[in-house]
């Protein structure tokens, strides 16, 4: 109790404004307690997140040459010209050379794609 009474003087000091103080007279409303703020936190997660240290210089991974040729895209012709062009069109198809592996998948073959 003594500790409480000692705390009393401290209890008033930060709240010098008394706009809510209701203990002035019997007819006044009782001042209400204020809710504490309870935050949801997830600091625990960050304890599992440490940077990965490099073991040494990283070897550059050589990317294989693309097996498909890049072809410039020509803008689509107007509709009236299409029928005429279709009649004179000469088509060619670039098929990438692939090797079928044992599990049924395909892997690109090394070397230039051939025109069929």
């Amino acid at each position: 109790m003594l500790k409480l009474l000692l705390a009393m003087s401290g209890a008033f000091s930060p709240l010098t404004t008394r706009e809510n103080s209701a203990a002035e007279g019997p007819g006044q409303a009782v001042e209400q307690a204020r809710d504490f703020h309870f935050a949801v936190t997830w600091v625990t997660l960050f304890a599992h997140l440490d940077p990965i240290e490099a073991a040494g210089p990283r070897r550059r991974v050589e990317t294989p040459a693309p097996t498909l040729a890049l072809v410039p895209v020509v803008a689509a012709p107007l509709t009236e010209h299409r029928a005429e062009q279709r009649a004179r069109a000469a088509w060619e198809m670039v098929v990438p050379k692939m090797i079928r592996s044992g599990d049924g998948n395909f892997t690109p073959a090394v070397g230039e794609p051939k025109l069929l």
Partner: protein
Amino acid sequence: MQPSNIIEISVQPGVQPQIDTALGLRAAGRLDEALRALANSNEYNPYLYTIRGEIEFALGYFHDAALSYFAVVHSEPDNADAHYNLGLCLQRSDRWDASCQAFERALSLDPGRDAARLGLGASLLYLNRLDQALATFHRCSEAAQGPAAFGKAVALQLLHRFGEAEIAYEALLASDPDSTEALSNLIALNVETNDLDRVRDYSQRLLKISAQSPVALQGLATVALKREDHHAAARYCDRIVQLMPDCLEGWHNLRVSLERILTAFSAPKPVAVGAELASEVK
């Protein structure tokens, strides 16, 4: 005599001596000197920037570390480690959105990287993208079950799926009874659902683990205030303001509790006592 048409070219020794010096200093715990050893390099080298990022991170220079790792991922876009480390640096620089992109990139390169998934989930929680965070934690493997379960519990709590969240926290506490953060979040959860018995139980449990826990004391003070146990409320608030002198709610509720105690005893009003004390001091 040297002919005038010959230009002198200074041969740069490369960055390897710098890296070796820095690694030696880092191994000796001299991080500031190690960082200085990597300054002013004459050529760009991704390994040098990686080491620099690691040292900056260890020193808490997260923004600088992010810049170093950004240089690495720029030159090595398929370096999953660098993307992951960049994500960590951005997180610690409060760049939550950008950190998500870095973690996603790391995961696209290495889908089995649970740490990147946990980092992504943590950032999504901060961004309040709760459904995405929950789905991210669900995708973690068994190896990361503990932290992923915690992330799920938090996401569920923030989604106001309190029943599921409480079950998830309880499962965590079964394996780790001393998880103070799980208990703190359970106190917050039960304050929100106004389950005072559970607030009291979890607060007492937390107080046994951490005798100075402000959350536990606030939980117990909340219960005491709502149940009009003014003496207990005053005791807990007294401890709260000793621990956290900036807690305005603590001061206010201490005063309210003391007023109610004094009113019950028909003693002089505490405001008047305070005024008398103040006049005596003057």
